[in-house]
């Protein structure tokens, strides 16, 4: 065990942490976009939209994240090849962000749905009775209230997502997990490098939690 090795290679590890942050941000953005669309589809009165969203949810919640990452990285190029005869390859970072984003989209959709359905039905009735359209009601009355409710579970999801970027190391993205493991292998000092990575992950999630409770306090002012 030799922690001075960790500080010696800290630049190498921090570049990995940088990639971890970029991939987490990328998949959070993708997940939020997908999740909002899927969540709205889930509560919409259109049967096909609601069914599609339900099926998407079942598939992405019902299979392992690691499998989804590998499927997108290895299997999608193969399927593309079978269908078109030509070749393409993902960068593992891109495939990883897509896999994580699509997976968290399913969970975020459920968070959004619960947030919308948690708003008192009287709010919709009052809006419609005033003559607001369904769209205006959703945009001006329901979503702003749902937003307050979804922040704690959403923050939880972001933390899970941040940590799950470590799974992308399995397809060769050189992020924090990948680099600390390979340094462990090279130096036979797993304790120092894995502990070092753990501290970085912990700091990142800690910042996220603090940011979320700050946002929550800001929004709580009015209610």
């Amino acid at each position, binding site marked *: 065990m030799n922690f001075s090795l960790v500080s010696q290679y800290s630049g190498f590890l921090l570049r990995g942490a940088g990639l971890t942050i970029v991939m987490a941000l990328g998949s959070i953005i993708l997940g939020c976009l997908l999740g909002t669309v899927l969540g709205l589809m889930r509560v919409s009165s259109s049967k096909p939209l609601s069914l599609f969203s339900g099926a998407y949810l079942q598939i992405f919640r019902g299979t392992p994240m690691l499998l989804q990452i590998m499927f997108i990285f290895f299997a999608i190029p193969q399927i593309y090849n079978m269908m078109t005869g030509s070749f393409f390859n993902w960068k593992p970072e891109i495939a990883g962000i897509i896999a994580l984003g699509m997976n968290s989209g399913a969970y975020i959709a459920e968070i959004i749905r619960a947030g919308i359905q948690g708003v*008192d039905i*009287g*709010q919709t*009735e*009052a*809006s*419609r*009775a*005033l*003559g*607001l*359209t369904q769209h*205006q009601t959703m945009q*001006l*009355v329901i979503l*702003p*209230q749902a937003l*307050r409710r979804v922040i704690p579970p959403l923050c939880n999801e972001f933390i899970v997502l941040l940590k799950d970027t470590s799974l992308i190391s399995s397809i060769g993205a050189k992020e924090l997990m990948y680099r600390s493991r390979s340094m462990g292998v090279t130096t036979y000092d797993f304790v120092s490098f894995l502990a070092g990575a753990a501290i970085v992950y912990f700091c990142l999630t800690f910042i996220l939690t603090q940011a979320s409770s700050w946002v929550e306090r800001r929004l709580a002012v*009015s*209610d």
Partner: protein
Amino acid sequence: MIKVSNLHKYFGNNHVLKGIDLEVEKGTVVCIIGPSGSGKSTLLRCINLLEAPSKGHVLIDGTDITDPKQNINALRTEVGMVFQRFNLFPHMTVLDNITLAPIKVRGMAEKDAQDLAKALLKRVGLADKADAYPKQLSGGQQQRVAIARALAMKPKYFLFDEPTSALDPELVGEVLDVMKSMALEGTTMVVVTHEMGFAREVADRVVFMDDGVILEDKPPEILFTRPENPRTKSFLDRVL
């Protein structure tokens, strides 16, 4: 005027309204009384389509709102509603609660809507509460804001769904006072209420409902003193 004819409403197998006929002339106040579960609120909610009638017609100034081709949003702007539980928007200030619909639905300029809202707040005795959030107000104050919010759309008709039932007894009076002043100005109102004193004093007609049908529809001085139907009689004996 509002004309309800042969209105039926089912919730699953539950037959809640069993052929309601009701007319409300412009400028009149009609109070609907009756025991809980008699269908009073459901009838009210059918008049602005918060509930879809299962059968029958609701005509507002001759327009059949049960016709699926009608623009229901436009019709709803003519029929204001005040709810038992106020249903103010908790994320907006009192002023924004009132100006939202005039701006977004009527297309009123923001400044004009704010002036209107301030005038209405003054009218309901809450001129100093424009910047407060609903949670900071008492129930009676919230309900008065809700009335101001409905007034801001300048609807031709007002529906009140048990507007004082969720209030502490000492706050009922301030809401009824606002409603009385509206009645005095000739506002057309349909009021589902348990406040018999209000019905007796303000209503032009009192409608007694029980088990999904209208049993009596008379001026208050007749209904309260000489009820004909034995069920009306026994209900009034219990509540008066």
